[in-house]
């Protein structure tokens, strides 16, 4: 299924969301929440097995931050769609094909270099996206984004340090980073692929720039870092028509893990 068809079937699910503005907003919130949820859950697999103690703590903190952001975004989505589903229902009670995270996050976390490469590509793209939401006309989203950006500053510092460390180290560190970038590079741009409701999002001032403009700004920033580190430029997105759908087996495994408690004890709460 291509993004177009899948999006249509997911948008049909927004029964309570009313007009075109609300449906476009719901798609945006769902895609962002799913991005944060999937990378957060995936990176949390490092808890207890990080390469050194400080990094075990750091990656666990980063993952916890992302899950918190996902929870808040699912909360805004629940208010927008208003069909009785709460944040937990949105996070856990959908079939795997109903998730709209970017293809970049469909990869398994891989080794530490792959985790760093993915975090670098995702955090920088997410930061460009948040910049385009800082002046959003949707006040609850604008307020949440103001809060999230203060936290993401730490994510960017962390991942910038690490990508430099791996690239400059040479030997196995650099080789592993190059292998990770070769694998993830063609999917990096999927985080900023246009959404079907993009015209409505821009017209209503929910997003202040088209995704193509955000993506260009992001690519310019990444290109400067990569040039300084002697890394090849990122390739264009390999499958732009499947940027957020047609998920991988690795995601299905992750899905099976993160829904396990919910499935085994229906309605369970903390």
């Amino acid at each position, binding site marked *: 299924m291509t993004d177009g068809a899948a999006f249509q079937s997911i948008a049909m699910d927004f029964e309570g969301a009313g007009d075109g503005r609300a449906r476009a907003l719901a798609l945006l919130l769902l895609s962002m929440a799913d991005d944060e949820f999937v990378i957060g859950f995936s990176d949390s697999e490092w808890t207890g097995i990080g390469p050194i103690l*400080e990094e075990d*703590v*750091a990656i*666990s*903190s*980063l993952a*916890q*931050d*992302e*899950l*918190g*952001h996902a*929870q*808040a975004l699912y909360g805004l989505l629940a208010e927008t769609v208003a069909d009785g589903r709460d944040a937990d229902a949105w996070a856990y009670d959908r079939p795997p094909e109903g998730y709209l995270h970017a293809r970049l996050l469909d990869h398994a976390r891989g080794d530490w270099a792959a985790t760093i490469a993915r975090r670098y590509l995702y955090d920088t793209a997410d930061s460009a996206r948040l910049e385009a939401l800082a002046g959003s006309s949707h006040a*609850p989203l604008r*307020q*949440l984004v*103001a*809060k*999230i950006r*203060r*936290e993401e*500053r*730490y994510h960017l*510092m*962390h991942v910038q340090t690490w990508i430099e460390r791996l690239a400059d180290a040479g030997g196995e560190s650099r080789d592993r980073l190059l292998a990770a970038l070769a694998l993830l590079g063609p999917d990096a741009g999927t985080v900023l692929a246009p959404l079907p409701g993009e015209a409505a999002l821009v017209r209503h001032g929910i997003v202040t720039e088209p995704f193509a403009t955000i993506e260009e700004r992001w690519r310019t920033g990444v290109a400067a870092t990569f040039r300084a580190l002697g890394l090849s430029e990122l390739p264009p997105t390999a499958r732009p028509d499947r940027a957020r759908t047609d998920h991988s087996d690795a995601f299905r495994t992750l899905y099976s893990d993160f829904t396990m408690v919910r499935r085994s004890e229906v309605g369970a709460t*903390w």
Partner: protein
Amino acid sequence: MVMTAPITAATVREVLGTVHDPEIPTVSIVDLGLVHSIDVGADRIAVELLPTFVACPALEVIRTDVGAALAPLGRSVDVSFTFAVPWTTDRLTDAGKAGLRAAGIAPPAEPSAVRCPFCESAKIAIDSLFGPALCRSLFYCRGCRQPFEAFKPI
């Protein structure tokens, strides 16, 4: 016994001053700057709080503690969290900063301005931006040779 004196926002704020951060028992949620608004109605008290970090796991504990602290006022209590303004470390009061030091946590500052909460030495080194809680980083004091935590400036 239900209190008979009129209940005002100041009364509520005074009670909230007795509710402490569950992870930092020396700092009240008022001194931490968590209280965004207090609305006292005829039969209801509404309190809006600002999360320090979006994913802070202590939120539900704080909600329960606030509800319990205000219960003796005899009105229904509604505690909610809002992002209406972002919580920042500038919201910490001087008493809050003293409370952090008492718990062995350096108040938030840019890394070069952090001082050891035990001996006030400036001879410190950052160990990790990320610490045992989302809101804290790890430092080491070369003066008294103690590792310590510092609240992250945000």
